[in-house]
């Protein structure tokens, strides 16, 4: 017991945190990212690698099952905590760590309890998994197939294709493990590979919170992509568009404040893009700059750092080489879809054009941060385009996604989504307005 207790306490010194952002939880996410970075608690992109799950943001009943699946997929011992507001983040993290370090915890209950299943209460072996997959009795005899691959744990829901193909001479046979046959289909390379139905989102790491895109994969090429209705969080309070909403409702808002927030929003998007592009060091730089801007750091202090960052990333030949030609979107198509923001101004319209546009805009906005004029919500763009409560700029970006994803490989698809970075919080506003009006 003594050694176990020491090990438990040592392990709890640096928990790996699965940060799950609920729709409407952007502010809490930013606070959590800052807190985790300063504490040196690594963030885990999958539940398998995490031992503390931090749910950031308001409750959302529709995403409850997905959240529970994440929790189920974490290796015990683990702790689940929730922070509804940004101020709660630090105390909630402390509480989580304390519980993680307590020897011999109580049986796992969602939301704020320690799961220590090895210490007595095992999960019922025969129960089906929450996503409806039957339990498997003959585990050792199980073999596996590429086509029936389970959805990536929690971060996406896998869906077996249940209208299995009967044409292979096994029509009535019972499939091992209750898994359905895969269905082959035409594909890009003429190889008729099996189709795999995978949902990207709602809780993928470095992904717009709550956005779900259902894709059909053959190999790792996306054959079809459908956008799910976004899950609605707290109604109508998108973090990155607040100044524009306030200005639209007649409140006086300074241009400087709006520029600061816009620069921070671009840096947030850049941080996400760089993380997806596999450049974690520069992603951290972007996020630090973002946090400094949101903290109200003076322009004179931030500007040189933002410029240096923009130079390093914008002029990186490697990053350009790796992303050029991905997600081509001409200005004409973008305008036709109703896009108004940086995405339409990015000449050339592939991923590097868009991140370079963000960098240019961010530097420009940091220069303008001391302006005192009053914000005109129509003339001045919000981070993702001209603010319009009925049709927020992110809606246009989101509708473009399925078209751009088809034919892309998985890695390229992630880059495309990150380079457009629609904000699901805005989508929620649009739908509420539409429903109300």
């Amino acid at each position, binding site marked *: 017991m003594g050694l*176990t207790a020491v*090990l*438990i306490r040592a*392990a709890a*010194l*640096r928990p790996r945190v699965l940060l799950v952002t609920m729709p409407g939880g952007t502010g809490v996410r930013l606070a959590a990212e800052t807190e985790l*970075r*300063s504490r*040196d608690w690594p963030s885990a*992109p*999958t539940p*398998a*690698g995490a*031992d503390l799950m931090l749910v950031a943001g308001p409750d959302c009943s529709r995403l409850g099952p997905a959240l529970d699946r994440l929790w189920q*997929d974490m*290796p*015990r*011992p683990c702790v689940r905590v929730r922070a509804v507001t940004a101020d709660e983040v630090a105390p909630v993290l402390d509480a989580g760590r304390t519980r993680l370090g307590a020897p011999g915890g109580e049986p796992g209950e969602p939301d704020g309890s320690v799961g220590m*299943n*090895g210490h007595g209460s095992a999960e019922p072996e025969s129960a089906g*998994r929450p996503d409806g997959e039957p339990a*498997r009795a003959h585990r050792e005899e*199980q*073999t*596996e197939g*590429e086509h*029936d*691959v*389970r*959805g*990536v*744990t929690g*971060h*996406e829901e*896998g869906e077996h294709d249940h209208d299995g193909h009967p044409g292979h001479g096994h029509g009535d046979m019972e499939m091992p*493990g209750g898994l359905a046959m895969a269905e082959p289909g035409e594909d890009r390379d003429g190889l008729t590979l099996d189709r*795999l139905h*995978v949902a990207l989102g709602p809780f*993928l790491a*470095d992904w717009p919170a709550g956005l779900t895109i259902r894709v059909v*994969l053959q190999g*790792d090429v996306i054959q079809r992509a459908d956008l799910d209705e976004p899950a609605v969080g707290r109604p109508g309070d998108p973090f990155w568009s607040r100044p524009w909403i306030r200005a639209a409702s007649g409140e006086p808002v300074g241009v400087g404040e709006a520029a600061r927030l816009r620069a921070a929003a671009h840096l947030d998007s850049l941080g996400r893009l*760089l*993380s*997806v*592009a*596999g*450049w*974690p*060091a*520069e992603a*951290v730089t972007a996020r*630090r700059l973002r946090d400094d801007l949101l903290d109200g750091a003076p322009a004179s202090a931030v500007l040189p750092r933002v410029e240096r960052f923009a130079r390093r990333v914008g002029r990186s030949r*490697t990053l350009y*080489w*790796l992303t050029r030609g991905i997600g081509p979107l001409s200005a004409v198509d973008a305008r036709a879809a109703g896009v108004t923001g940086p995405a339409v101004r990015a000449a050339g319209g592939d991923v590097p054009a868009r991140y370079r546009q963000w960098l240019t805009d961010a530097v420009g906005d940091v220069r303008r941060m001391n302006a005192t004029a009053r914000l005109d919500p129509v003339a001045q763009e919000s981070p993702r385009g001209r603010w319009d409560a009925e049709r927020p700029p992110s809606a246009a970006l989101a509708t473009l996604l399925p078209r751009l994803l088809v034919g892309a490989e*998985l*890695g*390229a698809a*992630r880059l495309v989504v990150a380079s457009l970075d629609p904000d699901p919080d805005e989508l929620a506003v649009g739908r509420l307005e539409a429903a109300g009006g």
Partner: protein
Amino acid sequence: MAETGTWWALLVAPAMLLGFAAAALAADAALDARNAGRPITVSTVVRPFLAVPRAVLAQPRRLPASDRLLWRAGVITVPVAAVLSTLVIPFGDHVVADLSVGVVWFNAMEVLTWAGLWLAGWGPNAAFSLVGGYRFLAQGLAYELPLMFALISAATGAQSLRVTDIAGAQHGLWYAVWMPFAFVVYLAGVLAFSFLGPFAYPAGRDVAEGVLGETSGVDRLLLEAGRWLWLAAGAAMAVPLFLGGGAGPGLPPWAWSLVKTLLVLAALVWTLRRLPMVRADRYVELAWVVLLPLSVLQTLVPALTDLSL
């Protein structure tokens, strides 16, 4: 020139490899802390190792239709192959097993990670994990042939496949100096087979850590350890292949080996954060159309030199 085969060398070699890997991890943690604006203290470099108690405590997860046997086999293969590769790497005057085909042995052990990582991706029966496994194969097809030619260049220069012969053949003129391209390709290969930094493609964040994504507990510890052990093994092998082994003025051979290994390791760790992740769909073509022909040309340099001597 080299002493071989004392029994304790069998224990010392893995321990030293572990030490180099730990040093690399600690250096990476320090750079991380500097980048994130945290103070760099002793605890900064120690904290990554808290993953060990965590891994020991974690209980196994149950996954539907996973292939435990193959998964476990793959996960174990990666660090074990890294340790086995060090058998032929001389350190100063000492080497565990001075095989006459040391270079090929190293290469074969490195290729074992292909099987290991593919199995690690296949085992859990999860989409992103499998994509990660396949990604390593794509990356392998790209980096392997240029890497082989880089190894062959060094072997051709020394006219021997024995690693100690190669180290001994560089009288004052390191192969890194007159075969710079082979040296660079070799270092890129080291990053690629340890799937770290720019070559973290099989474990990229865009596929939720790919091959690592579904692993937990000791499995994850072994795979993560495998990455850093391979980085250390690759750095240690670079010294006899391209940097003259333990030869150098003043200091004893083991000290020179230590210094050179740490320098190569430092350079590799520094590179990890300087470049974004290289996707195989771009790298394969570059490797076959540009790097491979250049590697062949590089091999011709020592071959023609041998002939003319």
